[in-house]
């Protein structure tokens, strides 16, 4: 519940600004872009472990992993954003988040650090990023870096819808 409340960065901005707070973000890289996730949404960050492929699953689901006895799906952000595939390396991590009361992992190229940025520097999403604007809740500026802040609720809700539509299309054909 807390996760979804915090996911709305705009709302968070509003509250944080009133108290003159900084936003705490976990930053990670996918295909050269730097992304930020509200730290309260991130449950943990783990190394890549052996994935079990799930047949007939939506194509952006890389597979499932065992997270201390819980089976959670891992979503490839590259596939989700329709970016070029890349092999996993030592830097690859799985960011475990909770979205809409579901725990899931995001496969990312690397996780860099926890950042604090002043809320005033967050701006509405620009038009030109590799990621669809719908999933972006804002862009944070830090020195000369740009952090794309993801709206996980929308990212996964739309993911669900698209997978349903695909399934429907498959059964119709």
């Amino acid at each position: 519940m807390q996760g979804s409340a915090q996911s709305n960065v705009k709302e968070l901005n509003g509250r944080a600004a009133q108290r003159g707070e900084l936003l705490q973000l976990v930053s990670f890289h996918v295909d050269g872009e730097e992304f930020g996730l509200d730290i309260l949404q991130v449950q943990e960050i783990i190394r890549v472990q052996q994935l079990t492929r799930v047949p007939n699953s939506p194509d952006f689901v890389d597979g499932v992993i065992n997270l201390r006895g819980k089976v959670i799906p891992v979503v490839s952000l590259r596939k989700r954003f329709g970016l070029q595939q890349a092999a996993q390396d030592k830097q690859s991590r799985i960011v475990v988040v909770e979205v809409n009361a579901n725990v899931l992992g995001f496969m990312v190229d690397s996780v860099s650090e926890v950042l604090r940025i002043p809320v005033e520097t967050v701006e509405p999403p620009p038009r030109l990023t590799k990621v669809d604007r719908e999933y972006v809740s804002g862009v944070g500026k830090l020195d000369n870096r740009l952090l794309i802040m993801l709206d996980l609720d929308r990212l996964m809700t739309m993911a669900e819808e698209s997978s349903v539509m695909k399934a429907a299309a498959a059964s119709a054909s």
Partner: protein
Amino acid sequence: MTDDYLQDPALMQEFLIESEELLQGMDQDMVALESTPSDADRLNRVFRALHTIKGTSGFLGFEPVVQVSHRAEDVLNLLRKNELQLTPRIMDALLRARDQLGVMLGDIRDSNTTTYDLSELLAELVTVQSAAVVTTVETPKAMAMAAAAGATNLPTLPQPAPLAINQIPASPPALPPLPLEAPAREPVASQTPTAASPARASSVAAVAEVPGKPAADTSMHTLRVDARKLDDLINLIGELVLERNRLMQLSRSFSGNKFDGQKMAEDLSLSTTRLSFITEELQTAGLKTRMVPIETVFRKFPRMVRDVSQALGKEVDLEVNGQDTELDKSMVEMIGDPLVHLVRNSLDHGVERTDVREAAGKSRRGKISLNANQQGDQIIITIADNGAGIDPDRIGRKAVEKGLVTPEHLRTLSKREILDFIFLPGFSTAATVTDISGRGVGMDVVRTNISRLNGVVEIDSNLGEGTTLRLRLPLTVAILPVLLVEVRNEAYALPLRSVQETRQVVRKEIHRIESMEVLQLRDGTLPLLRLSRLLGLPDSEESEGGGQRAVILHVGEKRLALLVDRLLGQESTVVKPLSAYLLRCPGLAGATISGDGHVRLVLDPTGLLKTASMSSAAMKAAVGSTR
């Protein structure tokens, strides 16, 4: 003030759970009271239960509940003081009050704001008090008591909820009918106790199911656990923490300079032994917290048997044993409906009418015994009646008629195998054993539901002596025996209950009928499906050379052969749900975690069959369009 309480969901939840339990207990006690009206303990228990419900609902402001429980309490109070004798009419009125309470509590839980027409029920509850006094002709004091009870609240009773009581006018006919939206009831007031017609009893039976069903809903997420079980669990967790400390100590001394390899190895092996012991214990203790006595299911049967046998005009005694046998909570929730079906079946088709029984030289009253016990890791539930039994010849004839078996084959079957036909769909006992029409739910549904719990149903019957149905259930649904198979170097688990056999397949046994592959077996041809294709994987290399394994699955009445690369063996695993994002993947039942911590997918044979038939239909359509 009251509104604040109403908004406290925890308090409401507690009230609803408690009331539900009390009502169920009342059912049992009230039916028992019918045969032993002088049992003061039971009477007091029913009285106290009603009193508690009245008190709490008054406190929470549920006036209709207070009204009904208050009137019923008046009647019980007179019974308790031996100033009134229990007649069938009084019992019917009390049971109706109890059912009404169940309906109202159900509506409260579902937040339905319904208004009830209680005037007739309340009037009946008042009338039975005075009516009984007239028939028993007791002391004038009893008269006065009854009158007092009818008029106002009894001075002896503590009244935590005075708000509702005085709103009921003293004389029954003057009660204002409230707007009616609740289920309509037949007028009962005019009926005499002797005219206890089946129609009326059956209406009671029908109503009785209403409070029964939501009961499962409330209990879905909450569970009362014996504190001793939790103590065991916490104790074991303490042990686990100790063991972790030992391991940390070991790891520290390992990283330090001074370590003795020999001693280290010994300590480590000792520690891991203890750890595996603790985790096993912990697993058992954890499962035990989910175990509840089967009594929660059995409790509703005395009432049900009473109502149904009354409706059918039969006299039936119910004997219940082994109520404290424990099984998994989810299991308890799921066996309720199949059991109700089986007991109803025994009442309806098993036990004969009184005259038939006497003509056959049997005791006048029929008997149904319900028994539960644990044998190893299985729970056995038996439902036995001493009724007419099932004629195997008749079942056999019917099976031949329906083309399920040839007359020659029939002769080779044992009695048990013949009786087993009644579990086939469309083979309802109603149509075969008696002439009473079926209820639309066959024994096949019972068998399907039980096998969904990884259990089995067996039947045994002696003509003229009775029928026994035996349910064998695993202790818990969480643990599933599976067959591990491998395709393209990935292991998958198949529920063992769907596996009939496995066999080596050579290429020449695989034939092609139109676009479908089939496997030739000794007793026929089966559709052959390649697991790799079902899972959207490329065909296995060996597939051309043959030498693969086929798993023969039976899904309902269908059989099919599933081609896999290798068999890896059997295992008992804990099935975990897949994430909500993956729920729409067909053919998957869940996931398990293998010994080395990897996730293995559990396949769902029914879903696989569905995907297969969909793709074959698509294939056929494609073939048809090219022609």
